[in-house]
């Protein structure tokens, strides 16, 4: 390989999600001191040129960022080998600590897990953190989101097949009225909306979703203008669409670290559940296969690990 190609390879090795360990070993490992100096001089986004003292030093911020990239594989492995209950409990705790930008993760956990899985997460939370998840959510979150989030993490939804269609129809109407009245009474303060979303079974909510479309011509989440409520409805009624969207947002090249983490989270938590359906939906929405997109954006061991997880079960 010519030196310029090698430079490109190393730049690539350090970009995207994770790092390309093999290239770093093969190329960086063989460069002599002069080649490495050229690398430093030509990589201004990593190295700061100290003209006065005639050397180039690492940008500390970049070193910290790189640490995240190297550790991405380790984090994925640890998360994957965790018991699902511990996994969800830890993800919830982290989301609470990070603040409102991460509350979507709480909604994801509360709404896309089965009733028993959510219960297990709550038990694990007791064990790990000496508090119940609802007490922490309730005491950390103060604003409009509190009622909805506490209700969602506390739910133990019926999971059988019985659905009363009349009730679903009337609750779709209730939602429609609440949305139309949102100017006077914001959706976040509407106890009936929260009641329906937080207590009804998922099958029932899918019936409500269907009836809502018939009444108003639009999808329920399109008409809800509060982000949390939107996410709630997506997770409960169209989870594979939700996950595809999260993955797509994560699989871009210059995203912030929280969004980047969602790639690991979604793949690890869904690999045994509905990855096949998510792959199909992803392809449907974005016209490209998920494995291919990961091949393009992720690197090294991290990439291989993700692809292996996705490929399980066909």
């Amino acid at each position, binding site marked *: 390989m010519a030196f310029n190609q090698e430079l490109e390879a190393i730049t690539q090795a350090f970009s995207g999600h994770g790092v390309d360990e093999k290239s770093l070993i093969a190329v960086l490992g063989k460069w002599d001191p002069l080649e490495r100096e050229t690398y430093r001089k030509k990589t201004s986004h990593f190295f700061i040129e100290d003209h006065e003292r005639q050397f180039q030093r690492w940008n500390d911020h970049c070193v910290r960022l790189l640490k995240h990239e190297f550790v991405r594989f380790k984090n994925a492995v640890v998360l994957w080998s965790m018991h699902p209950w511990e996994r969800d409990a830890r993800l919830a705790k982290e989301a609470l600590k990070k603040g409102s930008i991460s509350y979507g993760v709480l909604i994801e956990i509360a709404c896309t897990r089965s009733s028993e899985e959510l219960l297990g997460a709550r038990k694990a939370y007791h064990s790990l953190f*000496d508090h119940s998840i*609802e007490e922490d959510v309730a*005491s950390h979150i103060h604003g409009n989101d509190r*009622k909805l989030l*506490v*209700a969602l993490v506390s739910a*133990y939804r019926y999971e059988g097949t019985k659905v009363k269609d009349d009730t679903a129809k009337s609750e779709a109407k209730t939602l429609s009225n609440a949305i139309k009245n949102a100017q006077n009474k914001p959706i976040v303060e509407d106890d009936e909306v929260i009641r329906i979303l937080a*207590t009804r079974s998922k099958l029932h909510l899918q019936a409500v979703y269907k009836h809502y479309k018939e009444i108003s011509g639009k999808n329920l989440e399109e008409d809800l203008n509060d982000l949390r409520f939107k996410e709630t409805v997506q997770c409960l009624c169209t989870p594979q669409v939700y996950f595809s969207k999260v993955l797509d947002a994560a699989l871009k090249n210059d995203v912030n670290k929280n969004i980047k983490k969602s790639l690991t989270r979604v793949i690890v938590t869904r690999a045994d559940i509905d990855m096949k359906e998510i792959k199909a939906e992803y392809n449907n929405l974005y016209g490209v296969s998920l494995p291919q997109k990961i091949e393009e954006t992720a690197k090294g061991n991290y990439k291989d690990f993700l692809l292996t997880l996705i490929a399980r079960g066909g």
Partner: protein
Amino acid sequence: MATLVTIKSSPVEDAEALQKAFKGWGTDEKSVITILGHRNVYQRQQIRKSYQEIYQEDILKRLESELSGDFERAVYRWMLEPADRDAVLANVAIKDGSKSYHVIIEIVSVLSPEEVLAMRRAYHNRYKHSLEEDLAAHTTGHLRQLLVGLVTSFRYGGAEINPKLAKTEADILHESIKEKKGNHEEAIRILTTRSKTQLLATFNRYRDDHGISITKKLLDNASDDFHKALHTTIRCINDHKKYYEKILRGALKRVGTDEDGLTRVVVTRAEKDLKDIKELYYKRNSVHLEDAVAKEISGDYKKFILTLLGKQD
């Protein structure tokens, strides 16, 4: 301590003896009482299983048709598996409306988190709905928040207490109770999410700071359904045996006994702490619970209740 006197027996023999009691004209209630009144929960479930295997019939259905009135209701509830029983009690309470919500509060405050969970599962199986969805659909406002919060809680069960938090939250509760329009949401948050040990510490702190127990303070304000429910919640969490003694006292004193209350307390606590409740009753009323019961009710119902109270034949 329990009041139930258990007698060892084979479930097959019991099933056969019960079948004999049912056969023919009328029922041999005495045998039903003697057998079922001396079997613990495990034995009763074994009897159900044996009866089903031998006679291809659910003994519950048989009991429903052979017995009647308060006696039938008591025996039926006694035979149900505890989680199922609690689910039935909860469903009846929801249908009865606000005068019966205290039953739901009672159940979820006294049971451990795992037992509440078992009840919620049994509710799914029986009613094809979750308990919280039915409860939420029948209630509104702060009462709904409190009740749904209570049934969906999965409290941490450890012994750790945070004294600073106890002080902060005792203050919050005080503020919330003081005025009619106090911050009820915070009071609900505290009561429905904190662990029981933490809440007890908070109630104690309240008493230390304000010289009066929080339950007595709430009595002044207990006018609407929400405040009544708040009051019941705190009393059940604080000292459920005292609470049950009060239920029994009320059930037996009223003109026209509240058989539902009497049955509920006896059937649900006979294998748990009815003995302690009996002692509290005696201390409070200078009359033994058995004597008070014997005075107010009659017939097979009386015989059955007395048996569960530990009366030896």
